[in-house]
């Protein structure tokens, strides 16, 4: 399937967006690498849903980072985007940074989220669980933190040692826009855990079995804090299940959304 690339104006900021498929709307919020290009995972989901993949403010060519200071600014941004797209109550799935934003959206706007899928989501702090410093990591160290097989072609293509100018721009903007909300407190919002009781959407937590950045403990904490949430583990996978294990991740996601 070929996605449609569009640009949406959200409060004056030009936001890039991919859209494909048909059926109920599904909003996908991307992770720290800014994976807003057509991936096998999106293809699998678009057979059953109308999938929307917007690029966060400040990532790649999306504008609007100057208005983002903390993660709740991103939650409000997505409430605005839903209004702009006239999506009343879509399913929302988010990976890594996007999972964190999805959780915040579901806290602030509980009635705008039909079903929620959090995949290796940032956002929580597990006491005593020291998260490695992704901002200080070299490309090789980043691959080792994010992928089970850090030498795979996939890992090399997403986190390159000698990026093309376009790839370098994406890496620089992604790193900057992530740090904007995630530098300190590091990759989490200290208030989120205590607010997760507000989430009303049925929730699936998906976690890469071998996520070295955010260990499974983070997934378990989400499961504990969100009423009725169910945790499923993606075997043989690191921090980025939709990228590293597209088939399994899509299967879990579709089973949950279709149930």
């Amino acid at each position, binding site marked *: 399937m070929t996605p449609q690339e569009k640009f949406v104006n959200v409060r004056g900021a030009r936001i890039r967006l991919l859209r494909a498929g048909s059926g109920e709307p599904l909003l996908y919020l991307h992770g720290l690498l800014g994976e807003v290009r057509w991936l096998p995972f999106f293809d699998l989901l678009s057979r059953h849903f109308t999938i929307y993949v917007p690029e966060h403010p400040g990532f790649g060519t999306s504008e609007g980072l100057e208005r983002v200071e903390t993660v709740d600014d991103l939650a409000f941004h997505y409430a605005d985007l839903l209004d702009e797209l006239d999506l009343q109550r879509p399913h929302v799935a988010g990976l890594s940074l996007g999972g964190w934003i999805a959780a915040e959206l579901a806290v602030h706007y509980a009635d705008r989220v039909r079903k929620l899928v959090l995949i290796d989501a940032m956002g929580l702090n597990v006491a005593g669980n020291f998260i490695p*410093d992704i*901002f200080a990591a070299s490309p090789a160290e980043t691959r080792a933190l994010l992928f089970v097989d850090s030498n795979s072609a996939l890992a090399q293509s997403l986190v390159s040692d000698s990026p093309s100018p376009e790839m370098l721009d994406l890496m*620089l903007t992604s790193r900057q826009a992530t740090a904007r909300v995630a530098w300190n407190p590091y990759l989490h919002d200290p208030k989120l855990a205590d607010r997760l009781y507000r989430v009303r959407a049925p929730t699936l937590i998906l976690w890469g079995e071998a996520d070295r950045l955010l260990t499974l403990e983070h997934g378990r904490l989400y499961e504990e804090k969100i009423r009725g949430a169910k945790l499923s583990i993606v075997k043989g996978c690191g921090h980025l299940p939709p990228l590293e294990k597209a088939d399994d991740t899509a299967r879990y996601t579709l089973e949950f959304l279709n149930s």
Partner: protein
Amino acid sequence: MKFYFFHLMPWPDLPADFSDKSKHPSAWVTLSNRYYDAEKGHLLYNRYLDELEYAEKLGFDGVCVNEHHQNAYGTMPSPNIMAAMLVRRTSRMKIAMVGNGLPLRDHPLRVAEEVAMLDVISGGRIISGFVRGIGDEYYSMGINPTFSQERFKEAHDLIVQSWTRPGPFAFEGKHYRLRYVNIWPRPLQKPHPPIWIPGFGSKETVEWCADPARKYAYLAVFMPDHLVKWFFDAYREAASGFGYEPSPYQMGHLFPIYVAKTDKQALEEAGEHALWLYHKGLRHKWEMLFPPGYTSVSSMRRITGFAHELNWEAMDIKELNDKGYCLLGSVETVRERLVKYIRELNFGLLLPLLHFGDMPHDRTIRNMELFASDVMPFLKREFKAMEDKWSQAA
């Protein structure tokens, strides 16, 4: 020409296996402070302060201290404390803090007050440098680097206003909000102590300094000749765009200099210490030197293009010396190279780092003395016309 002896106060005793980069990827942030020995530190701080005080006797126009955190490269987390000690032990020369790391502090008025105190106590001998702090320090201090530029500018505005506007007044910023700005004391120099800005790679900073509302001195730090030229040209171009000709005292060059009887002797005596600076003290992890958002994406693109110029460890002492990262040579060589630099680049502030790396005290003193007797007066004479034309502006 004005001459300011710059000291970094490094911690020289690195672990024996420091050359193993896989074990010690950086002299910053992660190098354990178990390598710091406070008993030795007591002697070292006092020795370094002696060297700075001695600069006044030798006729330097001033000395420079600075701020760095959690590293072996420079052990002055607070330049104001260093300046406070020097103020009462000297009477003539200027004392430059180059500078206070504004975004790293949570309260800019603390900087404004301390600098004003020093200025009043010293009788107006203070030069107030402002820096953003280098990238590594955003890791050390936990400050979000994506707000670095705006925090710097806002803290700067607040400090300058607190020095120049009668208080009390309110300050309404994004990062700093105060209902009562009314600092006691106010600085002695009017409108305020001179402001110097050391730079490391951002053209935006040069343009900001050159703005006629500021006319701050821009200092090129540890750059090879052609980059110094690039930044000074950018400064002149910006000033010309604002419709004025900048004074040479708006441009400064900071780099290690060592003078000996012969070129050979200079390299033999100081080569290892310069290599300590460039191969050890300046060993950074790239991702820490450039944290996310610390420089704009467009500047980062440019910096990525000249990354090899920051890969000091790939250069031997000859290359470092030839390219202008340092200047080690006989009196004749040092005079000749400096005359050429100053003619070509037309700058008026020279900030020689006359102690660097693990240089022992006696060598430092010999270097300072030879520079003060055989280089400094020579250059002052050679560039007397600059002095005559611009000294008022300085």
